[in-house]
């Protein structure tokens, strides 16, 4: 277990470092950072002045090492446009995104796991096929379009929910529901597949032979084994949900990190973009690590070399 932990940690750190390089390279893909800030009509002197102030006239490796060194110490630089520290910008935008993401993954579990169990218990019947269709349609719905349609139905026609913003708790319902669609099909299939395998297994046959009730078999024996991968996968899915939050936040006008990144991309505010890409990557790597460890704790077979 110790070696497994060490190897996973080392890999996670290496991946984060690579993403650090990628996110830096990303922001230097365009050669005209300073022109972006100064505006297309700025004089060459003004552009040169901005380049000097931001340190963009130094050689690239120097800029990278300087940025990486500061990033490692928690200093992500200052936004070009908001004139605010990137770290405080992110700190003020991140809680909303995290809250939406966590609610979304809870919705996904609550919807997908029972549906998956029902489908597995009725394997091959029309119930199974109907649940499969739910997963397929969930996969095919464009998230931003679903968001707009929900706004029309529940916000405009029925007046049940606010159409934008998170001032009240009702405001969280639609955005987190849309976000949960990222994870529902995957988790549904995983639950169903795991349950089907578990129900066919020897230990369930033994439990049946012992005369245990159907509910006891499903909950105590089959579900316990089928749930392991679902628990692990939900951590990874949360990472995907957070990484894709930009679209939903824009649709619902939610001022989270995704929205911040979208705004920054449109204005060429690279310190913010670099930081958000890095942030999402670190969160994703952390969640994957948690998923791996959870998997190893729950199922010792996964700890192998």
């Amino acid at each position, binding site marked *: 277990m110790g070696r497994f932990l060490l190897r996973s940690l080392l890999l996670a750190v290496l991946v984060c470092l*690579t993403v650090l390089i990628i996110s830096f390279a*990303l922001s230097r893909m365009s050669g005209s950072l300073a022109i972006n800030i100064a505006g297309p009509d700025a004089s060459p002197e003004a552009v040169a002045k901005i380049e000097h102030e931001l340190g963009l006239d130094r050689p690239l490796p120097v800029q990278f090492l300087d940025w990486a060194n500061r990033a490692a110490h928690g200093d992500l630089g200052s936004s070009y446009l908001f004139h605010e520290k990137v770290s405080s910008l992110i700190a003020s935008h991140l809680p909303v995104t995290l809250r939406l993401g966590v609610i979304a993954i809870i919705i996904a579990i609550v919807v997908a796991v029972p549906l998956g169990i029902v489908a597995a218990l009725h394997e091959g019947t029309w119930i199974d096929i109907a649940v499969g269709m739910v997963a397929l349609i969930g996969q095919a719905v*464009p998230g931003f379009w679903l968001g707009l*349609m929900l706004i029309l139905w529940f916000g405009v026609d029925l007046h049940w929910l606010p159409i934008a913003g998170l001032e009240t708790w009702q405001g969280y319902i639609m955005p987190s529901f849309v976000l949960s669609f990222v994870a529902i099909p995957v988790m549904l299939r995983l639950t169903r597949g795991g349950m089907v395998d578990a129900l066919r297994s020897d230990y369930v046959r033994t439990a049946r032979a012992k005369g245990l009730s159907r509910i006891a078999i499903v909950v105590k024996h089959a579900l316990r084994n089928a749930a392991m991968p679902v628990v692990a996968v939900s951590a990874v899915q949360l990472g995907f949900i957070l990484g894709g939050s930009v679209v939903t936040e824009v649709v619902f006008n939610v001022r989270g990190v995704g929205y911040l990144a979208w705004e920054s991309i449109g204005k060429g505010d690279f310190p913010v973009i670099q930081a958000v890409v890095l942030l999402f990557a670190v969160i994703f790597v952390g969640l994957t690590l948690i998923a791996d460890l959870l998997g190893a704790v729950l199922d010792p077979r996964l700890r192998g070399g």
Partner: protein
Amino acid sequence: MRLRRIPLVIGAIIVGFAAIVAIIGPWLAPHDPFVQDLGHRYVPPAWMAGGSPAHWLGTDGLGRDYLSRLILGARISMLIGVSTIVLSGTIGTTLGVLGGYFGGTVDAVVMFIVSCRLAIPLILVALTVVFMVGSSLAVVVLTIGLLLWERFAVVSRAVTRQVCALDYVAAAWAAGCSRTRIILREVLPNIAHHLVVIATIDMAIAILLEAALSFLGLGIPPPLPSWGLMIAEAKDYMFFTPWVIEIPGVALLVLVLGINLLGDGLRDALGARTDR
């Protein structure tokens, strides 16, 4: 047994129809999809009050014929879907087969690259790249294609390992075949059916991704009628006439659903059930 073929048939019909529309679109379209007619803005579809048979699906905010734009949009979606999977399939399969065949260090490097790719937030990076390089159809295809290869890599690696354990690969090795020959003649043909299934999954994801990028204003540039862009352009008007976003949205939903149905059907028909 018959019942199991239904998804495959429905999916094939939808995708086939979309492909035909994409190919012969210009001859099908009743109007020029770019011609504006500001006197006839937001004409509703023919079956609604105020609609006219001249515009079956109505017109958009600049008076352009919605059906003609939708038809050209099908061509854009199919083009995006097919060209990105050619690119991402090549990258992913190369990485996956190399990792699966050679194992050891090569495999570790491949898996590390896959881990890095998974850690990168897809939409954010795609938006940034398109913003910096400038939006065009080619840039969107390249960006999505260069980002969306990880499923190809993971699956082709897994199935290559399975295939390599089989006797005919050992036989080819014993007969003195080169590694290149084994990979090209023994491994690739025997994992092809898995790759076809992954291609459908990734094609659907690429089409949805392009729509999302275009919706956010950093995908296909106007005046090209990407379905995502059509929804973005109509968004401010949806409160008055919901059909302006319903029509391109349903088109997108049906096409992606069709591709997924086809993929599911093919997986069952080809016996390519690996489940990631």
